């Protein structure tokens, strides 16, 4: 009986340890995805079909993904970080969290995509671009629709504007950086403090505000214009607006995480994700960014950068660790602490 007992104990212990060390290193890719879930899913599935490599995907906001990669830097668990605004990607590159890789596909990329790669010392690359703006619900805002950033301060939108928290969302950080470049830093924080009176909620996810506007939970959501267009295409009463004063834009990026468990699969995915076929998956899944491969077809509904008054966004400066940390700290102190 004693032996039985001992062997039972061993088996039980073995069960727990087995579950612990069952880290099979077969054909797998751990993908951290920071675009719309729908697009993430479609990309994972297409890559899985194409290569037979099983994709384990998690979707999180770009700020959250950046924090996760930083927290895991001792033992990286992810392979590729795909999508999300460029600034946190640049910050990760600067801190050595991501790996240098010069894909052969680079020569097929648009200028802004290559510039992103060069800025980071080839630790990241642009995969799509899109302008910042906002969308309003045309059922709720029937007359005198807002056309400029300044219009959002109007009293009639009290408690009716949503934007994400710049700490968690790259979208919202892009807005913060855009305002600083557009107006000057102190004026920008003045503007944001005034806007705060109209904000009903700072969401976690960058595109949540436009989803709330689409269902009528809020009247206006400050988001990238392609996110607003996606709602319109799906039949929501949303009108996308390119603000009259001019606006910033994002270069959505992709990086290979340094020291990830499956480096070969990561490079395979990287090269594949820059092909026109892979980039055109977005449009089929309600994502209307402008793809970075010159041969990729730009979706019909996508807001063209040519039609928007764009500022000369300084990606190198606002993607740098110090500037980003400084602006976010000031946002926490000046805006985040204001009474609701």
């Amino acid at each position, binding site marked *: *009986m004693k032996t039985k007992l001992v062997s039972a104990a061993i088996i039980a212990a073995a069960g727990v340890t087995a579950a612990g060390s*069952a880290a099979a290193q077969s054909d797998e890719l751990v993908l951290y995805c920071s675009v719309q*879930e729908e697009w993430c899913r479609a990309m994972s599935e297409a890559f899985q079909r194409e290569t037979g490599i099983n994709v384990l995907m998690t979707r999180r906001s770009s700020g*959250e993904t950046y924090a996760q990669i930083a927290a895991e830097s001792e*033992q990286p668990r992810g392979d590729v970080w795909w999508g999300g605004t460029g600034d946190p990607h640049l910050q990760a590159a600067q801190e050595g969290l991501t790996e240098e890789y010069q894909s052969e596909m680079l020569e097929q990329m648009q200028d802004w995509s290559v510039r992103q790669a060069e800025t980071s010392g080839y630790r990241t690359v642009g995969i799509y671009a899109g302008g910042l703006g906002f969308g309003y619900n045309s059922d709720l805002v029937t007359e005198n629709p807002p056309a400029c950033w300044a219009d959002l301060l109007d009293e009639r939108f009290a408690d009716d504007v949503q934007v994400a928290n710049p*700490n968690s969302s790259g979208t919202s950080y892009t807005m913060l950086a855009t305002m600083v470049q557009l107006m000057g830093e102190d004026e920008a924080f003045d503007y944001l403090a005034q806007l705060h009176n109209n904000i009903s909620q700072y969401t976690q996810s960058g595109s949540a505000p436009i989803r709330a506007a689409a269902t009528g939970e809020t009247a206006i959501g400050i988001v990238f214009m392609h996110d607003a267009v996606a709602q319109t295409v799906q039949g929501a009463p949303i009108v996308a607006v390119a603000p009259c004063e001019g606006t910033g834009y994002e270069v959505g990026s992709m990086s290979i995480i340094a020291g990830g468990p499956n480096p070969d699969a990561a490079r395979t995915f990287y090269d594949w994700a820059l092909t026109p076929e892979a980039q055109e998956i977005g449009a089929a899944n309600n994502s209307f960014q402008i793809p970075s491969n010159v041969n990729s077809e730009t979706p019909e509904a996508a807001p063209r950068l040519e039609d928007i008054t764009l500022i000369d966004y300084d990606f190198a400066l606002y993607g740098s660790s110090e500037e980003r940390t400084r602006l976010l700290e000031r946002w926490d102190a000046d805006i985040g602490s204001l*009474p609701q």
Partner: protein
Amino acid sequence: MARSSLTSDQAGAAWLGLLALSLVAFPWYKGAGLLAGPSASALVEAMTGRGWFWPLIAITIAMGGAALTRRWQQSSLVLGLAIAGLLLFLWQGFAVGLRGPSADWVGSLFARAADGQSGLGWGGFLAGIALIGLLSDLAAARGFCRGERFAAFCITAIVALLTVFVFFPILSLGLAAFIDPDGSLALAVFWERLSASELWGIGCLIGSGRCGVVVNTVILGVLSATLATALGLALALLVSRTDFRMKRALRAISILPIITPPFVVGVAIILLFGRTGLVTGGVADLMGVRPSRWVYGLPGILIAQVLAFAPVTFLVLLSTLEAINPTLEEAARTLGAKATTTFRTVTWPLLRPGLAAAFLLAFIESLADFGNPIVLGGGYEVLSVKIFFAVVGARYDLGNAATLAMILLALTLIAFWLQMRWMGNKSYVTVTGKSDAGLAAPLPPILKVAVLAVVLPWVVFTLGVYIIIAAGGFVTDIGRWDLTPTLGHLVTAFRFEFAETGLELYGSAWDSMITTLWVAGIAAPLTTLVGILTAWLVARQDFTGRRAFEFGTMLSFAIPGTVVGVSYVAAFNVPPVDITGTAAILIICFVFRNMPVGMRAGLAALAQIDKSMEEASQTMGAGGATTLRRVVLPLIRPAVFTALVYSFVTAMTAVSAVIFLVSARHNMATAYIMGRVEAGEYALAIAYSAVLMIVMILCVVVIQLLVGTRKLGRRQELQGRGPATEPAE
């Protein structure tokens, strides 16, 4: 007593053998498979420069030598060696971290310490188990548990497991709050975090500005517990003190929240009361006002929490009401008191302990609640959500999360302590063996009206919420009230194809669904095993430190899930026990969180069973393990069933601890649902939740079939055979 078999030297020798094997035959570090062979074992590592294994190896050899002598298990020397072995085992794990030695002298002694070491693997864990087994055996040989080896092993093992998986994480959490990541003591930082006005501000109470997150949490907890207790009381009165017809239906409805995955109730409330919600829209049209976002914040969280906690308070108060001896109320009526006076002067005072218990239970649940505040909170911050964003959000700050978690833990423990104190002081026992004849006094008419006025809206509201949950997943977009029926969301979640390579699962929810079922399926029996075993040890074994043992096991229940999650991150993200990102950490987390429930069920069941049957079994020569398996377990099947179902359902629906522990490889259903709610994909979240609820009900039925019910006696069987053996009534 004749216990010759128990004093044999075999068990001790077996543990010693296992210890030796773990040092030479299995890979010590994680990452290598069990059969990777001895090339990566502690012995080989020690010979190639990792000298910190030598002391442990030397002690093992010394014990091996001692084991050749007679009666070595009674020797104090061997016990000392075994304890030293355990300490050295712990020391080798903590002396060298992932990136290098944790103390300078270790580094100067062993050059290779600079390379660091990774977490324990097969060999490491086996060595730990062997040392625990050996120690329990030596203790039993010296008279611990009256020499009962099985019990001694169980107690030692459970204490060791609780230490590693409950106390060690909490300790790590405390350290993370006080100590900087670089290792220096940071009391100033801790104090700054602790005294921050964003925690304790009371601006909202005095009408200027906003309240701190701790104040918010307490306000929410008190309001939510008060309302939930009131509603629970109304329900309990309706069921036990009136002739209300639909009692069974009422009980059924009140069970629903227990199997409802988190977040969906919050979503349903948004769909009903959000700005474009059904009810808000209707009321706004009626009153001619502009629909508002009133539900986001305190009101919304309150509604959701009251809905979720009322069943718990209901059950507590119902049992209190049923335990009040009706003769007391009858006496009051006979003496001429009116119905209202009777209720006020007799029933109500006797209800008070139940009310206190229900209130504190709901308060504790509200503190720990994560799912509702994150969906409905808007700008209203509570501790659990704040902790989550300090760990998972963009501003990763484990120290801050740890400080907040300590505050939450302190609040919870205070509530538990109050509950114990309140319940312990006065005697409210009215049901005795002497007489329980008599009928409970019916509710005074005015109270009955009041109770119905509370309960009926609740029924309507609950039905509304569940109709949305039942239907929302199967229409195009319930958020915009586009009610075209569709199976599209189900397809998104659970699509599969039969390709040439076999079954290919493409739906996005498969990964999390399969992981959840696996984890819950493994965790439930383990939880039950540990829980029932603990109950048996506490109820039936006599050993030193029994009270402390019982208290320690209950403590793991008192810790809020969010705190458990953060403490696991703090403790298990680094060697020696480096298990974050695995399925094991999820299973372990569930086992030790839910084990006290199995233990409580086991204790209650064991209290009803006389010890004499077990004593008979032991007198006839059966050991502890055999008695437990052949006599005790069959008698307490209902407790086993309760423990299994509870731990299974909780593992499927728990969220507060899980969200810290999921990874891309091992994602859980609740974490997946949370992501969908966050992204506004309400329909997908609801569809998945509906599927999850159906799966849960099916699994509960399967458990019922597997465990079966207790069959006591053979009376029916005998009666069928004939009158010859008529049972004595």
